[in-house]
């Protein structure tokens, strides 16, 4: 039974991993990674790491993958550039990976660790439970635990800084056409030429629909007429 489950999960994990690398569409790659993560959670269960299997399903396959799906949907119809063209990297990449695989297998199997050949020592029923992991995490590994929480905080702040809307850095030509009529977050108002003005001044004609244009600069010639 254990063997059957292992081979099913291993095939799922390797198939999911191959799907991530080989599929053209990024959305399918994300879904393939979800399948890979579910198979990996089954492997964690076989290794009696119940808490980590649950965390893998909830945190990874749930939350992190939703983030990926959102970004894929946001970026949308970007045509996938696919594999790298023309370089030696494209041809040498799989060779490089195969070399790593051979080296790792030699390192693991040739290491002569006797315990690798067994199923591991017999463990009590509570092995891998949240209580055991949590006790270790809060007693022996308290400093790494706090460092990890601080790292999460830094990552959250960094993501906000990276993905915020930069007004003023963009040129007009760089502006996305889909967002042309959108209200900027800090601007508060439509930068379009007002409808009731029959003679739009030259100042507004160059920048209608550009959210990066300051509202004050935009409206000032309107008041002058």
């Amino acid at each position, binding site marked *: 039974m254990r063997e059957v489950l292992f081979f099913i999960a291993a095939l799922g994990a390797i198939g999911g991993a191959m799907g*991530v*690398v080989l599929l053209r569409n990024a959305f399918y790659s994300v879904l393939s990674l979800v399948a890979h993560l579910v198979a990996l959670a089954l492997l964690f269960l076989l290794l009696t790491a119940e808490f980590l299997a649950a965390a893998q399903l909830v945190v990874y396959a749930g939350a992190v993958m939703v983030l990926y799906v959102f970004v894929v949907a946001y970026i949308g119809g970007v045509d996938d550039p696919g594999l790298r063209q023309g370089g030696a990297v494209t041809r040498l990449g799989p060779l490089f990976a195969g070399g790593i695989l051979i080296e790792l297998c030699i390192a693991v199997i040739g290491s002569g660790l006797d315990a690798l050949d067994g199923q591991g020592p017999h463990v009590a029923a509570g092995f891998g439970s949240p209580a055991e992991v949590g006790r270790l995490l809060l007693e*022996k590994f308290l400093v790494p635990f706090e460092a990890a929480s601080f790292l*999460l905080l830094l990552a959250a702040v960094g993501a906000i800084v990276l993905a915020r809307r930069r007004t003023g850095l963009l040129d007009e030509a760089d502006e996305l056409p889909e967002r042309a009529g959108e209200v900027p977050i800090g601007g508060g108002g439509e930068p379009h030429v007002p409808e009731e003005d029959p003679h739009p001044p030259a100042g507004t004609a160059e920048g209608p629909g550009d959210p990066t244009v300051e509202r004050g600069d935009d409206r000032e010639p309107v008041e002058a007429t």
Partner: protein
Amino acid sequence: MSITWFVVLSAFIFCIGAAGVVTRRNPLVVLLSLELMLNGGNLALISFSRMLGNHEGQVFALIVMVVAACEVVIGLGLIVAMYRNRIPIDVDGVKEMRG
């Protein structure tokens, strides 16, 4: 079912991820392949934790998950920033980075 099988499987997953990082051009897929590499490392950590019969490898794997989540958040933020600045979504397209 000896522990060796799990460790060799983790080596397989790590290498598939490494091949993806090296050969793909879409930064989203590069991030996904990085996840594969981290998951291969996690599987090895948990295998060795089972081999030794203590929980420390599992705690280590949990910290690796946290680091992976941070990496995902920063990487996706970078991709969104690339998209906003009309840089092509291509790892070869990022010639320079500015604030």
